[in-house]
C-alpha cells in the first residue's frame, strides 16, 4: 500500500520551498495588515514538516526491507 507520508511529505516540501523562495527573494511582498515576512516563516515551517514526513517514510521503508 502507498505510504501517504511520501506524497504529503513532498507536497509540503514543494510548498515550503515556494514560500521560502518568496520570503527570501521577494521579502517586500507584504500584506496590508501584517509587518511580518509571513511567507518566510510559514514556508520554513512547511518545509520542516515536509522533510520530517519524508524522513519518517524513509525510515519505515528501510525497516521494512
Amino acid at each position, binding site marked *: *500500500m*502507498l505510504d*501517504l507520508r511520501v*506524497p*504529503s511529505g*513532498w*507536497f*509540503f516540501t*514543494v*510548498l515550503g520551498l*515556494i*514560500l521560502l523562495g*518568496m*520570503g527570501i527573494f521577494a521579502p517586500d*511582498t*507584504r*500584506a*496590508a*495588515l*501584517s509587518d*511580518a515576512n*509571513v*511567507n518566510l*516563516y*510559514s*514556508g520554513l515551517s*512547511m518545509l520542516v*514538516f515536509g522533510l520530517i514526513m519524508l524522513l519518517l517514510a524513509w525510515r519505515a521503508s528501510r525497516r521494512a526491507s
Partner: protein
Amino acid sequence: MKLAPVDYTILAVYFAFVLGIGWMLRKKMSTSGDFLLSGRSVPVWITSLAFIAANLGAQELVGMSASGAKYGIMTAHFYWIGAIPAILFVGIFMMPFYYGSKARSVPEYLKMRYDEKTRTYNAFSFAVMTIFSSGISMYALGKLLQLVLGWDFSASILVSAAIVLVYTFLGGLTSAIYNEVLQFLLIVAGFSPLAILAVAKAGGWQGIQTRLGAMTLAGGMSGKVMTHAWTYMGSPHSNPMGVELFGLVAGLGFVLSFGYWCTNFLVVQRAMAADSMNSARRTPLIGAFPKMFLPFIVIVPGIAAVALARMGVGYSIPLDANTHLPNYNLVITTLMAKFYPAGMLGVGLTGLVASFMSGMAGNVTAFNTVWTYDIYQTYIRKNAPDRHYLHVGRATTIVGVLLSIGAAYVATRYDNIMDLLQLVFGFVNAPLFATFLLGMFWKRGTGHAAFSGLVTGTVAASLTWCLTVAEGKGGILGNLHTFPSAMAQSFWIALMAFTSCFLVTLLVSLATKPRPEKDLEGLVYGLTKIPEDRGSWYQRPAPLAVTVIAILLVLNIWFA
C-alpha cells in the same frame, strides 16, 4: 482580491498532488470491497485524520468563522460539547458493533439488527441527503469564489468537481481517504497562520476581550460574553446565541451531535475502513485530539475580526451588497486578503478549496457505498458476481458527482427549496440516534419498533417546527412557543424527535415478538465478544478516551 501567479502555482501543485495520489492507488482496486470499503486496510493515523476531515467541509470553515464573529467563543461548543463526547462514544461503545458485525455500511447494520424496511428508510434518506449536502456545499464555494476572486461560478464548481471525480473514480474510498488527510494538513497549514496574525494584530486574547467587551456592553449584554463559553449560559437572553444550558447540552451535546457522529455513514465509513477492530475503535478517539483544537484556527479568526473592525486599523466586516448588513460569511476570506501576502494567500485559498473537496469526496464515497450495497444490490440486482458491483460502484461515482452538480444548480435557482430540504433532512436524522442506542444496547428492540419509532420521531420533529416560531420561521400550524433563536429551536426539535422515537421504539418493542438471541450475536451489547485491548496506553481505546476528556476539561475551564 487579486491573486498573483505564485498563488495559482500553489493551487496547481495541489491539484497535481491529489490527482497523483488517485493515480498511484488505481491499481489496487480489484474488488468492490477495495473500491467501496478500502478493503479494510487503512492505517489508523490516516483513518483518524480522514474521520475529522470528511466533516470539515468548506461550509463548515466559512460558517464557523462567521459564527465566531457573531457569537464569540461560545461557537466552540459545536466542537467541545457538540462533537467530542459523541466521538468518544462511537469509538468506545459503538464501533465494536459496526466493525464487528462486518456490515459494509450503517444502513446495512440496521438491516442486520432490525429489518429491511428500517435499512431502506435510512439508506434512501441518507443517499438523497448526501447528494444535496454535497450540492449545497458546492454552491456555497462557487458563490464565495465568485464574490471574492471574481472566478466564474460554473468554472470553479465544474473544475473542483471534476478533480474530485477523477481521484475518487481512480482510487475509490482509499483515494478519498488519503486525499482527505492531505487536505486536512493543508487546511491547518493554510488557516493557522491567519489565526496567529489576526489575534496578534488585535492585541492578543486580552486585547480582543477589551475591545469586544466594550461592544457587548453597549449592546446590553455582559462585557465578557464573546470570550467566555459557559458563564452566560444561564438564560437565553444573556448570550448572543440565544440558547440556555439545558437546550445546549441536551439538544446539541446529546441528540444532534450523537445523531451525527454516531450514525452518519459519512464519518463512520472512515473508521470502518481501518485495518483492525482496535484501529477502528481508535479512529474517532485519535481524531478527537485535532478536533478539540480546531476552534482555534476556524473560530478564533472570526472573533479577532470583530475586534479588528473596531480598532480602525483598516479592516472592517464586509457588508452584503443588497442588504447592507454585515456578511459574516466573508470574514475568513477578507482576513486572508489583509494578512496574507502573495504566496501564503495561495496556500490559504487552496486550503479553502481543499476543504470543499474533502467534504465533497466524503459525500460521494458514502453515497457510492450506500447506493451500491444497500439499494442496488438489495433491490435491483441481487446475486451478481463481485466484478459487477465494482463497475456499479465506479459508475455511481460519476452519477453521484453529476447529481451533486445538479443539486448545486438547483440551489442557485431556488434558495428556499434548499432551506426546506435541509430542514426536512434534519427531521429525518434527529431521531436516528435513539434507534441505534436501543438497537445496540437492548436486545429486546425489534424491527417494527425501530421503523415506527423513526417515523414517529420525524413526525414529532416536523410538528415541533410547525407549532413553534423562531426568527420568523416555523409556526405554520400555530404558535405554542417562541424561541429566542433559530438555534435554540433546532436543539429543541432534535430533543422532541429523539424522545418520541425512543419511547415509541421502546413500547412497540415490548408489544412485538423479539428476535431470537442467536440472530443478534455480534450486533448487540451482551451478545457480542469485545476483544481485549493490549499494548501501551495509546494503543488502547479507554486510556485514549480518558486523555481526551482531561484535555477537554482543561479547555472548557480555561475558556469558561
